[in-house]
């Protein structure tokens, strides 16, 4: 049973949308997400992977209701989020939480740890005032932060500790579903492993479902059950982690995997696996969005947009497999 289902989701951001531009029919849009569909099963971790500008964070934020989708549907536990009343949406926000990238800007510097964590608890009336401190201490214990730090400010903590506090805040809602947007990319390597391990422990203990957003593939491989590779607001390849990592099928996935630095004793000979830059998301290319950089591109790739279809036990959008 899927907990979350996304169907043909689109999100475009207007640029040049002033009155004059509209009168002159001069409006243009950043096409951040261009028709994305996937589902996430209960207890599963799906990772969205791609380079900056591929729309992965926009999807996460749209699912959480931080952006209105331009088109498409989001179903949570079988019900369409767009049809929900404000009251139902408010209830839904308890079940869906977010872990942010930057633990330096996602915690209010003027609030103490106690206030940071208790604010959402009070808003959503999770526990009574008397039980509050006990509840917060229990949460801090779960994420490995010393309970005696309750009255400290964020700047008194290290990056890793701050990220733990952010995680405690999202756990306070007893959520089912967590969007983790690059939760470890601002941290040092030795601390990254600590936070990843913590997230996996919490998932087991509380049966959490994760949508994990990242650009670091080795981390993604580590934490996910399934992976979606994105490019310019489209899913190019989606499927079981093991299938995709053992044997990437889409040319972009292949190039992306080839670009990741790997620990080696010998100096690498050939670094470049992909020439050029990502196209402009305002003027989307015709056909397959990847054709300008793809070494296998054929005529059809320039004209017809490929659909996702089953190849080798996963879904791939590429004309090579027609």
């Amino acid at each position, binding site marked *: 049973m899927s907990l979350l289902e996304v169907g043909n989701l689109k999100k475009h951001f207007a640029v040049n949308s002033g009155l004059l531009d509209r009168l002159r029919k001069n409006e243009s849009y950043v096409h951040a997400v261009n028709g994305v569909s996937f589902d996430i099963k209960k207890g599963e971790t799906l990772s969205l992977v791609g380079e900056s500008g591929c729309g992965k964070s926009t999807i996460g934020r749209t699912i959480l209701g931080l952006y209105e989708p331009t088109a498409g549907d989001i179903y949570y536990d079988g019900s369409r989020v767009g049809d929900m009343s404000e009251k139902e949406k408010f209830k839904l926000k308890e079940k869906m939480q977010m872990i942010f990238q930057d633990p330096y800007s996602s915690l209010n510097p003027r609030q103490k740890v106690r206030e940071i964590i208790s604010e959402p608890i009070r808003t959503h009336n999770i526990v009574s005032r008397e039980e509050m401190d006990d509840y917060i201490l229990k949460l801090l214990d779960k994420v490995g932060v010393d309970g005696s730090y309750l009255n400290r400010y964020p700047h008194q903590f290290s990056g890793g500790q701050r990220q733990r506090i952010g995680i405690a805040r999202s756990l306070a809602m007893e959520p089912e579903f967590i969007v983790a947007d690059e939760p470890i990319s601002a941290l040092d390597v030795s601390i990254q492993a600590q936070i990843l391990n913590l997230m996996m422990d919490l998932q087991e203990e509380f049966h959490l479902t994760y949508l994990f957003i990242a650009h670091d593939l080795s981390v993604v491989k580590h934490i996910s059950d399934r992976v979606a590779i994105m490019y310019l607001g489209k899913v190019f390849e989606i499927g079981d982690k093991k299938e995709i990592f053992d044997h990437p099928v889409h040319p972009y996935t292949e190039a992306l995997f080839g670009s990741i630095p790997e620990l080696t004793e010998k100096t690498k000979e050939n670094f*470049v696996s992909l020439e050029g830059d990502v196209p402009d998301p305002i003027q989307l290319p015709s056909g397959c969005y990847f054709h300008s950089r793809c070494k296998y591109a054929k005529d059809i790739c320039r004209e017809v947009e490929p659909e996702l279809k089953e190849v080798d036990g996963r879904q791939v959008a590429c004309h090579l497999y027609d």
Partner: protein
Amino acid sequence: MQKEKILEVNDLKTYFHTREGIVKSVNGVSFEVNKGEILGIVGESGAGKSVTGFSLLRLIEEPGEIVAGEVKFKGQDLLKMSEKEMNKIRGNKISMIFQDPMTSLNPVLTVGRQITEVLIFHQNYSRKDARKRAVELLEMVGISSPEKRIDHYPSQLSGGMRQRVVIAIALASNPELLIADEPTTALDVTIQAQIIGLMKNLIDKFNTSMIIISHDLALISEIADKVMVMYAGDIIEYGDKGKLISEPAHPYTQGLIDSLPVLGRDQRRLNQIKGIMPSPLNLPEGCKFKSRCDYADDDCPDCTELIKVSDGHFATCKKAQVFSKKLMRGVG
């Protein structure tokens, strides 16, 4: 054959005098770079790797101060030079590439203006020749239609292209040493691969030496000849890349390698180094890694001197030989 030594650093110390006390960011480091060689400096934030790089060019500002040491560039001590002599070295004999191309390029000057500036100042080019040379340089770093791009402003270029421009500026004066401080951290992986590949090619072509600073040990292992691992202001391991990666001697280096998730390996939990780096204001006596080290015991001596592990491979931990092992992790 003895290789030509380009840079020799002896016991360099850079301290920051803050209100809370003295921060010993670089606490007595010594290393050398030979001609055509790439030295990689690895460490976590706060390890002192960038401050080391900046100290070499004397780019340390108040409240920081280079308190001791020697930086010998082709036999001359840069720390003893006058500011005027230093200006002939900076951006000419030794160039620097910074992390963020958006902040290291001037947003209100065209790309061409920023490249020709170097050529006119350091190499006595005429304005016309400088422009011609700038087009060549842009072409060399892989920018398409350089005649057009030369009149563009940095904001009109993508992140990868901006970093290519920065490289063109750094190489404009044919430097003998290039210091690259996290040159690809702000870029995506496919662009990172392009930029690292470009830098490696150009370094090989001109037989330039390079110091590349990064937090990414995997990236360093792909490009460097020698690696230097820093921790809390000290070099804790230093030596030939192959040896250091295959037989890391210091428990911190071992932990760093072990905590990297590896694409080719299945594992449920990552090995983690417990704890965090000690506060630079309050460094412990002796070995600074002791509180996080699995092997630490009461016999741990003061681990501040590098000792030889094997030929061309040094580490500060006296237990080094005992732990030195081929890690079971399919390093290629």
